[in-house]
């Protein structure tokens, strides 16, 4: 079982899950955790809740192979918290994706704190883009992790290229930090696997939809090259994402 824990799909461009499932087939991936794509640029006049609805519907028609992550805009204040709750209770999303860089919002505000409390209540993880100043630093997620130790927070890129050591330090210091092997160079990936509890590791491609298929092959190749015991590889590919995103429920 191989689960790609970090993907996107442009549901506005293509709302047919068969297209995504065909890509998964081609690369031997069984399931994917999916965020939207267009929504991170807040394209009007479509509301954020409509984008979340579209993504949830897209995944609902995938035969259980695609699991959605909703998003929100912090500037919406209380409405953002209501939307997050609606997505968990009514749409059944598995968690949230927040991209502070693209969405242009600092994570240090009462709205994010309320959403962290909500996520903790549902045991729903929040997957952050990380590794990009000024809003998307791994250490900023560490600060949030310290404020909300009951909320599972995922470093979506483990610091990417320049902040990979900061990301590992973040995960070392806070047990509620989960770490995605997605976007780093293999030296950083191996260091994370060597230093972090294996139960907190995920693998992802950051596939962004049609045209980006070669990134799946590339990032799968990087992961395949890591020195990992078979049971660890299996945990990262399958056991961890199943548990973290509650995919069996």
């Amino acid at each position: 079982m191989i689960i790609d824990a970090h993907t996107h799909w442009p549901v506005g461009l293509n709302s047919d899950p068969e297209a995504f499932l065909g890509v998964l087939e081609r690369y031997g991936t069984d399931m994917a955790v999916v965020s939207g794509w267009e929504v991170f640029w807040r394209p009007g006049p479509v509301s954020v809740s409509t984008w979340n609805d579209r993504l949830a519907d897209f995944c609902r028609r995938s035969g259980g192979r695609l699991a959605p992550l909703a998003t929100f805009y912090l500037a919406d204040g209380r409405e953002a918290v209501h939307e997050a709750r609606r997505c968990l209770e009514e749409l059944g999303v598995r968690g949230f994706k927040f991209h502070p860089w693209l969405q242009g919002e600092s994570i240090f505000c009462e709205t994010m704190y309320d959403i962290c409390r909500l996520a903790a209540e549902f045991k729903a993880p929040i997957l952050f883009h990380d590794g990009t100043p000024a809003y998307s630093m791994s250490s900023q997620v560490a600060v949030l992790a310290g404020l909300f130790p009951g909320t599972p927070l995922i470093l979506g890129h483990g610091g990417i290229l320049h902040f990979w050591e900061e990301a590992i330090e973040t995960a070392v210091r806070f047990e509620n930090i989960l770490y995605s092997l997605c976007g780093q160079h293999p030296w950083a990936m191996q260091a994370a696997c060597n230093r972090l509890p294996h139960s907190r590791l995920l693998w992802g491609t950051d596939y962004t939809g049609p045209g980006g298929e070669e990134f799946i092959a590339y990032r799968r190749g990087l992961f395949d090259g890591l020195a990992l015991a078979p049971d660890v590889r299996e945990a990262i590919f399958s056991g961890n994402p199943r548990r973290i995103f509650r995919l069996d429920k």
Partner: protein
Amino acid sequence: MAEKQTTKGAAPCVDACCTIGPGAGPGVSPESLLEEMDRAGVDWAVVHPPDNGYAFENEEGNALTTGAAKRHPDRLIAAVTANPWRPDAWDCLRRGLQAGGRILSFSPGIQGFNPADRRIDSILEKLAGDEPGIPVYIHTGHHSLGAPSQLFLLARRFPEIPFIMGHAGATDYAGDVVPVCRQSPNIYVESSFARPPGFIGRIKAIGWDKGIMGSGYPLNGMMFEWSEMRRLLPADHQKAVLGGNLASLIGGLK
């Protein structure tokens, strides 16, 4: 042992970004680099100093790269550096060039300067006057210091100097590369850490004569990076991007 890789055609393969010596990643000796090059089917490699060689121990880093190139003159090409904040930076660089350095290399993120400001200008004025034609490799992609747009301004101040945009702005400045390079005939783009699928798309938009292959070894795996680039790069452009462009830029392999 894995089977040795090969490239279509007989053109030499040149890896523009390898690091030797102790650093943030695994420490690599010149000899183990050569073994990796043999496995990956790479004929030549540019060797850059490790991070401490950029930051502070410039002479030691340059001695490492020029010493390696001297011992292996038919395989290794030395890049040399000096922290631009040093009052004697040009003297340090000149000694590195006299010892066999063929490329100047700067890492704004590690060395703490902005390519867009004038910190580096006195060095480049001397380079252009005393050593015309030597290319300047700038590590890009690091946040705040090392954006492609900062190199854009620098390259306009020194149109006679060929610049190599190391790492093609990876990752967060990937979208800046094409608009920068379309206006900058003296900027070449090096691929390491920019991931072959994305890099190739950008070079296609800029011009195949501007693409330079680099693996980013040893943080990246050399065999895997070369294998992916060979797999994805159109056959017609492999000769140029995998070695020809850089060889021309440094005045030939010797």
